[in-house]
């Protein structure tokens, strides 16, 4: 087992504090894509050119300029083992793309893991800031400040008319992808979710599952982000997302209250059954554990369950992922073994709190 700090803990330090609306909003994330002038994008860059990108970008965030944002450590992807990479993906600290194709790939992380700077991903530079709860404005302030530090040190590929030039035409302009991870069990249970999601699509936002699982969001967790990056200012993008998410929170709140009024017994039964199954099952598939953990989260928020804390549930969401289970229980687990260890982990964490 590697001694890498970033892959030992399931929960990044920033995840431990709630942030606003944390009963519904898990996290807010800003990502800014940037490229250096003259060098080909990572898609076409040679090994030497990727090294050159790394040499230009890496020192920027190990100097004094970055001290305001914590101490940073650079990890080269080619020096990490497969399991560590998988865990970094499960913690959302790197993208699956960076983990798979690491020609000159690196990530610069600060100690609480709220800032993750990817080098040689699809673009030369991807600055990512993660905040707990609904804090899109705060996350943008930090991301743009980090962007300014890089901009003062290197020449970005920028065009008067098209803005920041990116490898993919869907990121050109601001290079900004602002997203919010929300837990919407009541909207799913009351069958309102599809109507809301299609409305979200109509205002230039897009919805995905948390680990790119497609339309079927695991554990009722959805990621809502901006689709448009050209022709809108960053603040328009952020305010649009903030306002839409605020409305979704309102709908989810109302749906939760209605559930409590209309079907209190059924919902209480469902939540307590989920607790029972998580606390005693011997085999647990990922999909089921995600769904039942979602029930627990709802139960805690509705006051039907007294524990576990939201922080423990966030932790379990990450720890029950395949990479983390292997990290905890052994490198080469078959899928049946994973299901068994997942159940064991859940029993040990939740069973003791009766």
């Amino acid at each position, binding site marked *: 087992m590697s001694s890498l700090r970033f892959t030992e803990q399931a929960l990044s330090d920033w995840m431990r504090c709630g942030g606003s609306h944390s009963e519904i909003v898990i996290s807010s994330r800003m990502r800014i894509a940037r490229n250096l002038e003259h060098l080909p994008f990572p898609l*076409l860059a040679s090994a030497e050119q990727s090294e050159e990108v790394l040499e230009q970008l890496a020192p920027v965030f190990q100097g004094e300029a970055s001290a305001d944002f914590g101490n940073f450590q650079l990890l080269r992807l080619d020096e990490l083992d497969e399991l560590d990479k998988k865990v970094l993906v499960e913690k959302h600290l790197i993208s699956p793309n960076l983990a798979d194709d690491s020609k000159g790939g690196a990530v610069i992380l600060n100690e609480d893991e709220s800032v993750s700077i990817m080098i040689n991903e*699809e673009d030369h530079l991807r600055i990512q800031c993660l905040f707990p709860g609904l804090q899109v404005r705060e996350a943008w302030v930090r991301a743009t400040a980090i962007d300014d530090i890089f901009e003062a040190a290197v020449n970005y*590929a920028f065009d008067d008319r098209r803005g*920041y030039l990116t490898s993919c035409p*869907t990121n050109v302009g*601001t290079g900004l992808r602002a997203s919010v991870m929300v837990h919407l069990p009541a909207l799913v249970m009351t069958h309102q979710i599809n109507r809301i999601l299609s409305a979200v699509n109509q205002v230039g936002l897009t919805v995905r599952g948390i680990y790119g699982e497609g*339309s079927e969001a695991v554990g009722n967790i959805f990621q809502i982000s901006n689709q448009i990056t050209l022709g809108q200012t960053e603040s328009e993008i952020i305010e649009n997302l903030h306002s839409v998410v605020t409305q979704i929170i309102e709908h989810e709140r109302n749906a939760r209250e209605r559930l409590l009024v209309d079907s209190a017994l059924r919902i209480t039964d469902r939540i307590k059954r989920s607790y029972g199954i998580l606390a005693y099952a011997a085999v647990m598939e990922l999909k089921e554990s995600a769904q039942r953990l979602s029930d627990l989260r709802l139960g805690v928020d509705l006051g039907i369950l007294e524990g576990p804390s939201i922080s423990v549930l966030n932790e379990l969401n990450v720890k029950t992922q395949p990479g983390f289970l292997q990290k905890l229980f052994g490198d080469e687990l078959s899928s049946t073994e994973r299901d068994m260890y997942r159940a064991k982990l859940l029993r040990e964490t939740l069973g003791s709190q009766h």
Partner: protein
Amino acid sequence: MLCQECGVKPATLHFTKIVNGEKTEFHICESCAREKGELIPGTAGGFSIHSLLSGLLDLESAGKGKSEAAQTVQGLHCENCGMTYSQFSKLGRFGCSSCYKYFDSTLDPLFRRVHGSTAHVGKLPKRAGAQIMCKRQIDELKQELQQSIMQEEFETAAELRDRIRKLEKEMPQE
């Protein structure tokens, strides 16, 4: 219906692929689809944004058929990284920042489809953007100037004119 690949699990994905006008129907289960990296809408490993973009770009040339314009577009290439337009339309990604310059004539329709817009209005890099920022400011002042003239506020207009002149003098050169 059973999955046509493994023949064990029920097929949950049904889709039609059209390649060069040839239709093929697929009925497969999710795990086979994932393994084969087939096109599953909305999944990371399958139907990617790049394949969607490349569809849009192909549409662009398909619409024009084998006209002269289409041939000119297909002949485009980036002199910096060597990427050809047909590579770009297959990959749905640029090879370097100069591609934007060499493929410029084809980009407005693409950006309009993806973003509903063709021009950046957001953040500017402080150093390289100083000139652009200055230009934007001058444009804004010129509009204000027009308005104040129309409203016969000549004192304000004179003030604005002086500010514009000053900015034009101070504008950083490329």
